[in-house]
């Protein structure tokens, strides 16, 4: 009797619990992958703001180290296990994902009228919108430690001759001129893009894309010579220094200069809150114009298999608004929303100023020059070690260019 009573009671409790409403079931959960673990706190602050204004939507953010992000994402997309929201480089990568059916067509779902013209162009492919630039853009220039320069009566260089002279001066004083984590070829790739851009400028780069100019033109080959010569200014063991170690070394003051982007500053502050740096455009090949290169922080796509597409659209639209864009530019990197400027971030202002000199799109975002980045990565070490001539290096890069006229 007692046993039967206990059983009845237990069944009753179980049935009652299923009838009770569960607060968690009213919330939509969106999974999101991001490739900047050093920004985690800042991004989460923005997500918290979104969740306060949209209490029925929760964002589960997963940060993945940048060097592993593409591998993990590509594998997850192929396996059908990608998150609701994932970032992809604009241009060829986004086009490939769209063609494969991984991304939702956002053309009639998102209003991108508030974006800067370059951001609109970056996320529009053949008239269709496949992604939203919610975590801004980045401009790459030359960071330098202001105190090191001030203490030694130095000024940031504006061309190759000044740079190499500065490099020697710093070495004579026992200061590492430049931190360059070159293990995976990423930093040399950005260095070359800026050096070549100092010769080509935006018009010349468009001409390379059309096929009317080449990276093997004599004036552009000078960029390869500059890249080869700058190797002597790097820290010891640069060819084996991983990317993240190099950024940390610079943040800790182990070198006077670093080629870096607006997106790196947040990471520097995480490593060394007292860091005091300035930014200038990267020194030009002699006779050229100091240059920066600009790209989008991976714009966000909505997974075509997501069960919460409407909620994801709501999130992306909100992220392109002025308030979140202000949070991005004040705490992380440059923004892609029109009319939003850093309120009190000197470094971001200097980076914007640096970009006014001579700014070119990063090569890998464009279908014609998408392969150049990988070619630089694969051949930079041979150039540095004298195993490859600047002419052969330039040829290896040009061989990957697919002009739009062809």
């Amino acid at each position, binding site marked *: 009797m007692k046993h039967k009573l206990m059983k009845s009671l237990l069944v009753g409790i179980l049935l009652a619990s299923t009838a009770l409403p569960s607060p968690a079931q009213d919330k939509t959960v969106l999974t999101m992958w991001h490739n900047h673990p050093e920004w985690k706190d800042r991004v989460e602050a923005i997500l918290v703001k979104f969740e306060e204004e949209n209490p029925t939507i929760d964002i589960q953010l997963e940060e993945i180290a940048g060097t592993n992000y593409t591998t993990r994402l590509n594998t997850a997309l192929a396996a059908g296990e990608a998150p609701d929201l994932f970032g992809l480089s604009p241009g060829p990568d986004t086009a*490939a*994902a769209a063609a494969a059916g991984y991304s939702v067509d956002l053309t009639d779902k998102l209003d991108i009228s508030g974006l800067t013209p370059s951001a609109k162009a970056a996320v529009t492919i053949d008239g269709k919108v496949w992604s939203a630039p919610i975590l801004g853009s980045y401009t790459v220039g030359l960071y330098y430690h202001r105190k090191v320069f001030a203490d030694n009566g130095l000024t940031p260089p504006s061309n190759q001759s000044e740079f190499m002279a500065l490099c020697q001066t710093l070495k004579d004083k026992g200061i590492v001129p430049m931190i360059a984590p070159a293990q995976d070829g990423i930093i040399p790739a950005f260095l070359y893009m800026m050096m070549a851009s100092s010769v080509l400028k935006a018009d010349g780069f468009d001409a390379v894309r059309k096929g009317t100019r080449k990276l093997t033109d004599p004036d552009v080959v000078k960029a390869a010579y500059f890249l080869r010569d700058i190797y002597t200014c790097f820290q010891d*063991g640069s060819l084996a220094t991983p990317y993240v170690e190099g950024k940390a070394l610079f943040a800790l003051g182990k070198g006077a200069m670093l080629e870096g982007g607006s997106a790196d500053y947040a990471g520097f502050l995480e490593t060394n809150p007292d860091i005091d740096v300035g930014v200038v455009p990267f020194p030009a090949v002699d006779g050229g114009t100091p240059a920066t290169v600009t790209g989008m922080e991976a714009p966000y796509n909505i997974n075509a298999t997501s069960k919460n597409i409407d909620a994801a659209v709501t999130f992306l639209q909100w992220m392109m608004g002025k308030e979140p864009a202000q949070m991005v530019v004040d705490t992380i990197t440059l923004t892609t929303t029109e009319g939003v400027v850093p309120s009190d971030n000197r470094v971001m202002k200097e980076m914007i100023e640096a970009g006014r000199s001579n700014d070119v799109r990063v090569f890998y975002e464009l279908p014609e020059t998408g392969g150049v980045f990988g070619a630089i990565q694969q051949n930079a070490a041979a150039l540095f070690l004298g195993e490859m001539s600047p002419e052969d290096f330039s040829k290896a890069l040009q061989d990957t260019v697919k002009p739009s006229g062809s």
Partner: protein
Amino acid sequence: MADSSVPVRLASAAPNARVRRVPSKAMLRYGHLWFVLPGLVFFFSVMIFPAIFALGISLTNWSGLGTNFQFVGLDNFTNALSHWPFYRAAINNFYIFISILIFQHTVGLFIAVQLNEKPRFMQFYRTVLFLPVIISLVSTGFIWTLMLSSNIGFLNPMLEDIGLGFLARNWLSDTATALPTVIAVTAWNSLGWSVVLYLAGLQNIPEELKQAAQIDGANGWQIFWRVIFPLLSPSFTSLTVLTFIGTFRTFDVVYVLTGPLGSPAYRTDVLGTLIYRTAFGGSGFSNSDIRMSFAIAMALILFFAMALICWGMIVVLRKREIQS
């Protein structure tokens, strides 16, 4: 004749006694397969089926993204066989194999012989020597990266502090020292295997054989070379084959120590990093250099080449064991 699959009631059994089933001939002959079936199913699903699927992908031009690809036949295989980086990486694997093989068959054997004399704290020595084997290769790579880094490592400062600063190098970025450094780290990690394998072999050698040789007037070296070492042939075979497989599968240590490009300038590039880089790309910025089906073709060529070489090794070394 009575059907042997029919239940049989013994004549002497009580009327209500349980009937004993006699297994059929088929069951007796093939019944053991039921026991291996779960393992076989697992083996097929995680080894054979993916290999067949991979072979199918290698016959296409699939980049690794999307569903747009065409059948290209054996193009990936012919391209891989004429792809210079494939041979460059294989040569590095070969250097690693030869170096580790010599190290294990000399240093490993020497240590095993010493431990076989059962010195004091033998268990402690054996444990310490085997510890690196159980540390994951990724962890091994990170530990040694921290020690060898030109910027944050402590090896170079330590050498300078003890007056050996002239030995300090950019271990992982100098083209002359990068691959030897990778080999040294691999040797450190794998030493325990050779010690354990040889120690097991030594402990199986009957003491009477050594005593008989001593009585015949053989000295220590002659006893080792003429009696002990030939009887270690099975250990030698196992170690050689395992070393070959392990060194040609090298990936983790190289990836962590010198990156996906086998820096500097591919001096440490091995088949594992080449295949990984070809399949997944070398950076987080662009997918333009991803060629999944080509990478799979290289992996399959490596698989079949290794299988053939292992088979040849085992045939030759087994003959030597028999002769010994």
